[in-house]
């Protein structure tokens, strides 16, 4: 009990520190203490704490950085929870949205919606997550059907199927973007954005579009915590313990695709978050999904926020897509995990 209290406290602190850093750092740095006070002064009864920032600084904090922070939080939490679900779904700890092509599937769906003129308005943006969901669902279903071998999913088959699926979906997404737009201004920036993942220039509109998806799908997923525990022991055992395996699998497929799609629809493919975070959290809080899911959501949120801080400060004034930072961290970690598992047949 004491240890788990410490874990939750640390995760909350990490998230707060990440958030304050994210609001302070950037092209125009603002003192973190001023940021904290400005935030607190918005709370009822605490208006006396207002540090007296300029109106320009106010705009930077509340209109530019805060929505970006909120979006990074949501993307990190959604991808991490989706990763946890997929690992139990495939009964395989190497599964994750970006590794087995699900993110690319979502990205393909989203680009089709964008190019076919869905635009950036709220209604149009609403179509993007739906199309991303369809793409993610398609990719997950194909990878699942092709990589099952007699009731289990061998690591090698899963990863190879996922690699092929990811390449196919990325190629289709790039094709759609390059050929589908106005031929006088074929926009490679868009391709880069969808392939590499970025939360730059995001507004409150984007946040409000994905928030319900992430909140509802995340809440449902948490309610499936015990089912995920049982399912991770294998289909037969899950069945013997009273789980309606096919029904729960369909539900989890939908939930993890929805979470991935919500993240991809507003940020493109931010890689490796869904692999790294569940692994680290499993070491810290254990594999029980009832605690693993919320812990991964918090840690994933903090990770993407911090990665975004690095992305916009390390080469300032140039912004690096946040997906490059997460991949720089995540890919070596993935290789390390594969190396450690070398005793397993591929």
């Amino acid at each position, binding site marked *: 009990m004491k240890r788990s209290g410490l874990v939750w406290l640390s995760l909350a602190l990490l998230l707060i520190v990440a958030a304050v850093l994210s609001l302070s750092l950037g092209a125009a740095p603002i003192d973190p203490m001023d940021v904290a006070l400005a935030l607190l002064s918005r709370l009822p009864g605490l208006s006396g704490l207002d540090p007296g920032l300029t109106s320009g600084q106010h705009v930077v904090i509340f209109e530019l950085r805060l929505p970006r922070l909120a979006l990074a939080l949501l993307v990190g939490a959604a991808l991490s929870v989706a990763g946890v679900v997929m690992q139990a779904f495939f*009964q*395989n*700890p190497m599964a994750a949205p970006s590794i087995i092509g699900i993110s690319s599937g979502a990205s393909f769906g989203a680009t089709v919606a964008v190019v076919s003129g869905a635009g950036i308005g709220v209604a149009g943006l609403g179509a993007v997550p739906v199309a991303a969901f369809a793409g993610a669902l398609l990719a997950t279903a194909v990878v699942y059907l092709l990589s099952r071998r007699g009731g289990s999913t061998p690591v090698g088959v899963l990863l190879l199927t996922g690699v092929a699926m990811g390449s196919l979906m990325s190629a289709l997404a790039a094709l759609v973007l390059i050929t589908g737009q106005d031929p006088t201004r074929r926009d490679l920036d868009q391709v880069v954005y969808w392939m590499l993942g970025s939360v730059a220039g995001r507004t409150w509109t984007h946040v409000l579009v994905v928030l319900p998806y992430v909140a509802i799908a995340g809440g449902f997923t948490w*309610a*499936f915590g*015990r*089912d995920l*525990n*049982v399912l*991770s*022991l*294998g289909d*037969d*055992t899950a*069945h*013997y*313990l*009273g*789980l*309606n395996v096919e029904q729960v699998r369909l539900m989890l497929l939908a939930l993890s695709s929805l979470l991935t799609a919500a993240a991809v629809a507003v940020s493109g493919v931010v890689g490796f978050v869904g692999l790294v975070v569940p692994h680290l959290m*499993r070491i810290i809080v*254990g*594999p*029980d999904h009832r605690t693993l899911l919320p812990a991964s959501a918090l840690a994933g949120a903090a990770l993407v926020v911090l990665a975004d801080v690095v992305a916009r400060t390390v080469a300032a004034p140039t912004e690096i897509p946040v997906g490059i930072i997460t991949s720089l961290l995540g890919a070596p970690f993935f290789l390390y995990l594969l190396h450690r598992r070398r005793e397993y047949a591929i």
Partner: protein
Amino acid sequence: MGKPVLAARNLHCGYDDFAVIRGVDLDLLEGEFLGLIGPNGSGKTTLLRALTGRLRPTSGDVLLDGRPIAQIPRREVARRLAVVPQISSPPFEFTVREIVAMGRSPHLGRLQAEGPQDQQAVEAAMALTGISGLSSRPVTELSGGEYQRVVIARALAQEAPLMLLDEPAAHLDIGHQVEIFDLLLRLNRGEERSILCVSHDLNLAARYCDRLIAVSDGAITAAGTPSDILTAEFVGSLYGCEVRVDADPGGHIVVTPLSRELDGVGAR
């Protein structure tokens, strides 16, 4: 022995076009300790999977308490019938206690936490199988025999009156084999649990089971008390080798396979 609690009626099952179980009729009677024997590939595990409702029969019925098992909600089945499958290593590092506690899931609602009754069932199951001391160990660090006992404890925590086990002693040394079969016998006699157990060890099966059913090539070839069916002639034809059947000083059946090299017998 009471009424049949689990029954197969003209059961046929298979994978794709290949029939594995061909017309099996079988009754597990209330309070019975029933053994299922037969050579590798005879269809024992497939039959067990069909009896648990995991595998859909191509024709015929499996009846749990007289009702077709496919029509009973899964959670209700799991409260009546616990299964110990052949063990495979888990992908995640759950602790022993966490694995055993999963046996309570058919008794708990989706958002319901474990209550005192559940804790008690888990502790009792671990105590009975002698794994209380391993409670907080990750199952990935256990030996095959230890993990086998964890899986049995999980089935016990289900508190189901029927237990189906697929070679529960396969990974155990003789000391632990006897311990597990003694435990099953106590559950059978003391708590009147009905037990169906697949076993390759004929001597253990003969010793502990009330009745044996022999399966060969997907059909039942004999059923009866161990002393009725474990004759040298029948066992020899079932497994395709010469055997000697003796009584040990206590009067228990001992089946010994004979060697072509050492005993100079011919193949059958």
